[in-house]
């Protein structure tokens, strides 16, 4: 059986991070860059600019007046935040080549978007800086499962079948089948894309959040958000049951229980909007043509 890094290496043929993100990283990491430089790079990609403006004008932000230009969006939302949204948008495009018979991509991304919105909602309530960072982590949390469906379709079909009519979670069936799970593969993929360590850790440990450490809060946010998205049945990434909520992870977030209905309402309200913006649907078939420009 191949290890996560080998699977990722094979999958990279189909799923490489679009160059727009690399160029945006260079601009935002350059201390001499201005807001206009970032805007210029984004505007070179018309579909990215359009998606970004639709997102900024949606219920996701709820700004009282219309945002018409990328520069305005950067000024309102922030450079780092726009960068995160660009990454989110790029990531969906990275997986356009996956055959439809292997994975229900529409259901997969709907679940990921639900988790992403929940993560951002929790980060906003905890007043954490750059809540969009958590949106990206939520969007990517199950991305290792795409690699498994793509590279190991038969063992994955067996793992899914093993869960039918039982109390087993797919993540457990993955461990029994491969000796590791989709979270390990996701971490390997993000490492190969050279994405930040915090993101790798949040994705890699979202089913076993650490109690302490630099990334414990980030990981707890993604863990709790995944449970919320599963409970609300937003999309489907292969898991038929609601995964158990880790008590210490919940406690670590210090959320007021009475805020849960507000968070759930946030997620439900924004989900349809964000799905329509991030996923592009084929006019004739009605199928999601994920992230197509």
């Amino acid at each position, binding site marked *: 059986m191949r290890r996560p890094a080998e699977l990722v290496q094979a999958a990279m043929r189909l799923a490489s991070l679009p160059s727009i993100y690399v160029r945006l990283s260079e601009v935002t990491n350059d201390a001499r860059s201005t807001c206009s430089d970032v805007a210029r790079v984004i505007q070179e990609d018309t579909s990215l600019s359009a998606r970004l403006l639709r997102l900024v004008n949606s219920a996701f932000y709820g700004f009282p007046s219309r945002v018409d230009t990328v520069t305005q969006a950067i000024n309102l939302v922030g450079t780092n935040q726009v960068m995160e949204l660009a990454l989110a948008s790029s990531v969906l495009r990275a997986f356009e080549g996956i055959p439809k018979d292997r994975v229900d991509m529409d259901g997969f991304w709907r679940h990921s978007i639900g988790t992403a919105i929940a993560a951002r909602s929790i980060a*906003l309530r905890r007043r954490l800086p750059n809540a969009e960072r958590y949106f990206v982590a939520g969007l990517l949390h199950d991305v290792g499962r795409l690699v498994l469906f793509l590279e190991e379709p038969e063992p994955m079909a067996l793992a899914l079948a093993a869960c039918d009519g039982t*109390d087993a979670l797919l993540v457990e069936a993955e461990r029994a089948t491969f000796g590791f799970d989709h979270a390990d593969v996701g971490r390997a993929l993000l490492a190969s894309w050279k994405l930040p360590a915090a993101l790798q850790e949040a994705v890699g440990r979202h089913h076993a959040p650490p109690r302490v450490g630099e990334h414990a809060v980030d990981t707890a946010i993604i863990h709790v958000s995944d449970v919320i998205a599963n409970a609300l049945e937003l999309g489907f990434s292969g898991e*038929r049951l609601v995964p158990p909520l880790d008590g210490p992870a919940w406690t670590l977030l210090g959320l007021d229980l009475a805020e*849960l209905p*507000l968070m759930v309402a946030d997620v439900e309200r924004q989900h349809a909007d964000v799905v329509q913006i991030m996923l592009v649907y084929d006019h004739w078939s009605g199928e999601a043509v994920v992230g197509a420009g």
Partner: protein
Amino acid sequence: MAIVTIVLPLDEIVEGMELDADVMDGVGRALVRAGAIVTEKHLRIFHMCGIQELRVRRQGPDDAPEPSAEVLAARQEADDLMRPRFRRTDLTHPPVAALFGECVARAVDRSRWSGASTDA
């Protein structure tokens, strides 16, 4: 009369209600802090910023009225449908119980809507 906290849609929020949670805009800036008494100006701001629901404190009856038999039956049906999906969770853990309650409430709402559209 007891003080209760309740989540209400913005349309049902009126001046004089006391906020029970900070109201934030889409980028996480607090528009109004918990404990503030809602004014007409607040309501205008909430509408402008697309706020849809708020948690407020208000006086409520000491004993809430019993839900109707129809509502109880719908809740039970949604509970029965939902519970198997939660079988790996600990439903006695307060956040899980709250999340389960939200899912049941939403399933009841959905069945009411679909019932209404079928009747129409």
